[in-house]
C-alpha cells in the first residue's frame, strides 16, 4: 500500500464523502417523516390508509434497495417516469428507510403503556392530542435505539448508490480501482471514511441503548 497514492486520492474521496453524507441526511430525514406518518396511521388504525401503509411497509422491507433503485432509475423511465440519479437515490432510501422507521416508531408507540393512553383519554384528550402529548414523546424515547440502528443501516445502504452512478464513496472507490488499479489504497480509504461517519454513531447507539434500558427498567 502506498501512502503517496492515499494522499493523492484524499481530495476526490473528500468530495465523495460529502455526497454520501448529504444524501444520507436527506434519506434519513425523509425516512423519519415517512416513518412517523405511516406509524401513526397504523397506530390509530386509520381505515384504508392503514391497509396502504401495511402494503407499503411490507413491499419495501422485503426487497433489496439495489433492486428498488434499479427499478426506479432504469426501469421506470421505460414506462415514462424519470427522475435524476440523486433524486432516485434519495427516494429509494426514503422509501426503504421509511418502512424500517415506521416499524421502529410503531414498536415505540406500542410500547407506550395502554394505561398511559387510557389515562390521556380519561382526561379528555383527542387522538391528535394523544399523539402529540402522550404517544410521540413517550414512544420515541423507547424507539430511539431502533431509530439509531436504522440510521447506521441507511448510511451503509448509500454504498449501493454506486449502481446508479452517483459518485458517492463506494462508487468513487470502485472507480479509482477501475482506472488506476489502486485497489488496496482505495478500499482502505473507503473503510476509514465509513468508519469516520459510523463509529461515532455506533458509540452513540450503544449509549442510547444503555440509557433507554435504564429509563425503562429504572436501573
Amino acid at each position: 500500500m502506498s501512502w503517496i497514492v492515499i494522499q493523492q486520492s484524499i481530495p476526490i474521496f473528500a468530495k465523495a464523502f460529502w455526497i454520501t453524507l448529504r444524501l444520507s441526511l436527506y434519506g434519513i430525514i425523509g425516512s423519519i417523516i415517512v416513518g412517523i406518518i405511516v406509524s401513526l396511521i397504523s397506530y390509530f388504525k386509520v381505515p384504508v390508509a392503514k391497509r396502504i401503509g401495511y402494503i407499503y411497509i411490507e413491499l419495501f422491507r422485503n426487497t433489496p434497495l439495489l433492486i428498488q433503485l434499479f427499478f426506479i432509475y432504469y426501469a421506470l423511465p421505460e414506462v415514462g417516469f424519470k427522475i435524476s440519479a440523486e433524486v432516485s437515490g434519495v427516494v429509494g432510501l426514503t422509501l426503504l428507510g421509511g418502512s424500517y422507521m415506521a416499524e421502529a416508531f410503531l414498536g415505540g408507540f406500542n410500547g407506550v403503556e395502554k394505561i398511559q393512553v387510557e389515562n390521556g383519554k380519561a382526561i379528555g384528550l383527542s387522538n391528535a392530542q394523544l399523539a402529540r402529548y402522550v404517544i410521540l414523546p413517550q414512544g420515541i424515547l423507547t424507539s430511539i435505539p431502533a431509530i439509531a440502528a436504522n440510521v447506521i443501516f441507511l448510511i451503509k445502504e448509500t454504498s449501493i448508490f454506486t449502481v446508479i452512478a452517483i459518485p458517492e464513496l463506494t462508487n468513487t472507490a470502485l472507480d479509482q480501482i477501475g482506472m488506476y488499479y489502486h485497489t488496496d489504497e482505495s478500499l482502505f480509504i473507503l473503510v476509514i471514511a465509513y468508519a469516520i461517519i459510523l463509529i461515532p454513531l455506533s458509540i452513540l447507539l450503544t449509549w442510547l441503548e444503555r440509557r433507554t434500558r435504564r429509563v425503562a427498567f429504572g436501573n
Partner: protein
Amino acid sequence: MSHSGINIFFEGSNFVRLLHGLLVSAEIAFVAIILGAILGIILGALRTTKSRIVRFILRIYLEFFRIVPTVVLLFLFYYILPKNFNLNLSAEVVATLVFALWMAAEMSDIVRSGLISVPKHQTDAGKAIGLNPVQLFRYITLPQSLKLMIPATINLTSRVIKTTSLLLLISVMDVINVGQQIIEANQQQYQNGAFWVYGLIFILYFILCYPLSLWEKHMARKEAAIQNG
C-alpha cells in the same frame, strides 16, 4: 412492437435461468445464515462473560462488520485477501463467508442483548436452588432469552437474503447478474426489458422475504401474548 414485454421471460430458457440465479442467491444466503447463527450464538454467549479482553475483541469484531458496508466486505474478501494472504476462494465461497461472518457479528449482538434481558430475579432463583453457572445458562438463561431473540433473528435473516443482491458486484451468477445478461441479450426484441426483468426480480425477492416478515410478526405477537399472561 408485436411483443408484449412480459414475453421476455418466455424466450429460450430465460425464466428458468432467472430462477436458477435466485437459487444461487438463496443457497449462499441459506448456508451463511446457518453458519452465522451458530457462530453468533457462541460469540453472543462469550460477550456476556466477565473477561474484558474477550468482550473487547468481540466488540471490535462486531463493530467492524456493522460499520463496513457489505459491498466493501465483498471486495475486501474477494480481491484483497487472496492477493495479500495467498488464499484463493471462489466467489460463491467468499460470498458465503462474508455473509456468515456478518450474520455472526449481528447475531452475537442479538444473543447478548437477549441474554442480559433475562430478569435478574430469574438467575437469582436459579442460584438459590443451587444451579452452577453452566446449568444456569443451559436451563434458565438460554431458553428464556431464545424467545426474545427469535423475531430479531428472523429480521436479520431477511436482511441477509436481501443483501445477496450485491453478489452481482463480485463474479457470482446471481439472479441480478442473470437478469442483466437477459436484458442485454434480448434488447433487440424487448426495448423495455429492464422494466420487466427488474420488476420480476423485485417480486421474486419479495416472495422470498415476505413469509419471513409474517413469521417474525407472528412470533412477536405470540411472545407478547405470553408476556401478558
